[in-house]
């Protein structure tokens, strides 16, 4: 695909005469996955394309429950239904075609996506935004079949409800355990915000309960902020076992509700297991992933390094310094949509600018944030500037930061689904 968009500048009737699109009305873009990357890409491609592109979104869930902000539901700060969003506006206002099915395979030579239901979806460009799947066996003793006994709750949806039910059902003075994931994983502060939200719920319902955090990492996102907040709001409730005390050597026994840390058996009352992660299955099935399990991309436009007719967005991409977050996926989607539209229709292509901010809630009105701005280099998407909340900030600033996070949720969901 070496043809230049310049060839189309000034063309009118010839505007869709790309080599791959000869003899058809409009260039076809298929988007796999309706999350922060995929929904944003579909919306921007269809909306900004103003009918020039035929955009199909492949997503099995009629209602998308965001994984971001699901911790706030666990903590009792948010209704479950407030996390759910439909695709109606993408269809009715922007003309996206919705295929309510799972993508089961990609024939890259023929440029066709096959759905689980057997539908064939030809494309001129494919956007793959499948999020994460788990590395089987990364927590010995746990597999997806154990997710009822020990939920991962790390993809949003029903698993998150199950997690909250287990916290609520914890016996008085009981022990709740979390196994945190190794790097890299979705939402770096997510496990620690989840600990905060579980502690918040327990503090009110079951204040003598304990939380055991088993962590294979030496350090983690916003560590000083979480530690300060836990000391302040939940003193004596949370114990973290890092790798220096065997946190990287863990096995679980879901049937017996036991966690084995460095050979020592701990009886717990409930647990959540967040395993090691990799790109969502379809990325590997399409041959887009490397040995590490992630899909490498071109930092300038999120194009797959394996296939220039495919863009990979969000958590599944191996892009460099950006965290795996909804904010990052949304940011990448808009850069990619501009580049794809330019290639397929000759519209103007502008330089890539990426950014990210991750808010976390530690307790009522105690919000913190971390963020950075990113630009492409030949090797990777590189951080060029960053900031983080400080320890010891006053309550007014923390409250303002929390309120800002609510504004962000309203903003990004409007940007994805509006």
């Amino acid at each position, binding site marked *: 695909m070496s043809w230049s968009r310049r060839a189309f500048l000034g063309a009118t009737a010839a505007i869709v005469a790309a080599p791959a699109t000869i003899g058809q009305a409009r260039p076809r873009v298929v988007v796999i996955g309706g999350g922060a990357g995929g929904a944003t890409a579909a919306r921007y491609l269809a909306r900004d394309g103003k009918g020039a592109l035929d955009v199909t979104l492949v997503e099995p869930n009629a209602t998308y429950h965001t994984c971001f902000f699901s911790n706030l539901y666990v903590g009792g700060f948010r209704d479950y239904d407030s996390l759910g969003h439909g695709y109606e506006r993408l269809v009715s206002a922007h003309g996206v075609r919705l295929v309510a099915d799972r993508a089961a395979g990609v024939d890259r030579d023929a440029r066709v996506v096959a759905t689980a239901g057997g539908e064939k979806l030809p494309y001129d460009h494919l956007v793959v935004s499948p999020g994460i799947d788990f590395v089987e066996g990364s927590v010995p003793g746990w597999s997806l079949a154990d997710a009822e006994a020990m939920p991962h709750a790390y993809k949003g949806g029903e698993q998150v409800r199950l997690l909250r039910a287990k916290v609520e059902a914890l016996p008085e003075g009981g022990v709740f355990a979390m196994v945190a994931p190794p790097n890299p994983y979705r939402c770096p502060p997510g496990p620690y915000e989840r600990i905060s939200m579980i502690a918040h719920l327990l503090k009110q319902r079951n204040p003598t309960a304990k939380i055991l955090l088993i962590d294979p990492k030496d350090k983690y996102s916003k560590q000083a902020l979480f530690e300060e907040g836990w000391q302040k709001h939940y003193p004596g409730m949370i114990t973290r076992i890092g790798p220096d005390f065997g946190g990287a050597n863990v096995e679980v026994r879901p049937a017996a509700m036991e966690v084995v840390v460095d050979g020592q058996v701990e009886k717990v009352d409930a647990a959540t297991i967040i395993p090691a992660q990799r790109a969502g299955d379809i990325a590997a099935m399409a041959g887009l992933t490397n040995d590490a399990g992630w899909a490498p991309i071109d930092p300038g436009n999120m194009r797959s390094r394996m296939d220039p007719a495919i863009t990979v967005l969000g958590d599944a991409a191996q892009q460099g310094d950006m965290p795996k977050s909804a904010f990052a996926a949304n940011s990448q989607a*808009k850069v990619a949509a501009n580049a794809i539209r330019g290639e397929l229709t000759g519209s103007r292509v*502008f330089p890539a600018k990426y950014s990210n*901010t991750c808010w976390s809630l530690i307790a009522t009105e105690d919000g913190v944030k971390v963020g*950075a701005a990113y630009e492409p280099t030949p090797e990777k998407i590189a951080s060029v500037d960053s*900031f983080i909340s400080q320890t010891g900030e006053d309550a007014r600033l923390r409250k303002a930061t929390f309120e800002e*996070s609510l504004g962000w949720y*309203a903003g990004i969901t409007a940007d994805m689904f509006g």
Partner: protein
Amino acid sequence: MRKGLAALPVLAALAAPAAASEIGDRERGAALFDECAGCHEVGPGAQDATGPHLNRVFGRRAGSVEGYDYSEGLARMGADGLVWTLETLDAYLENPRALVSRTRMNFAGFDDPQDRADVLAYLRGFSDNPRDIPEAEPTARREIYTVPPEILALNGDSEYGEYLSAECRTCHQASGGYDGIPSITQWPVEHFVVAMHAYKARVRPHPVMQMIAGRLGDEEIAALAAYFATLEE
């Protein structure tokens, strides 16, 4: 038309300490303060009126006078960390809404830098005596960088602005909805441009906006301003 744009003073990021000048003429400032006195009291026994009293305003966190009911915009800027200093007060007096969106201070601003300097010299007399407090605000200003009028007069490329705006829309709803993050839809061009340069120069607080504005060039800020000013969604 371009009122209030010509001289937003912002500290140059790398400005070497250059020639300092006395900040202004207090007597002249006292006379100019008549324009403010309809709403603000200052001096012994001053109380909150339409606006908060202005005793000890230098060094005070914005929106922090106990008991005064501030606008949401000013309270937000205070929570974000805006502190009233010579630089921030100067920017506020020049164009209140460019520094603090949705402030209730209904004042068009002093265009003339000398007027602002004189009023600030007058107000400064009612803040703590700098001779007694070593860390108090300076009484003379460092050389300041002024956003040149030609940059403020740039005609933005609205199509480029539309692309760049995608970054803003993650948080600022294009519909103008306001759920904890202010709307920037249909913000007047001059306010938008001055505000972004104020973030860039770190006169306006807020780390996210300082970072976002920090990497935008003059043309890009103009492009965004042109786009958002006319956005209808």
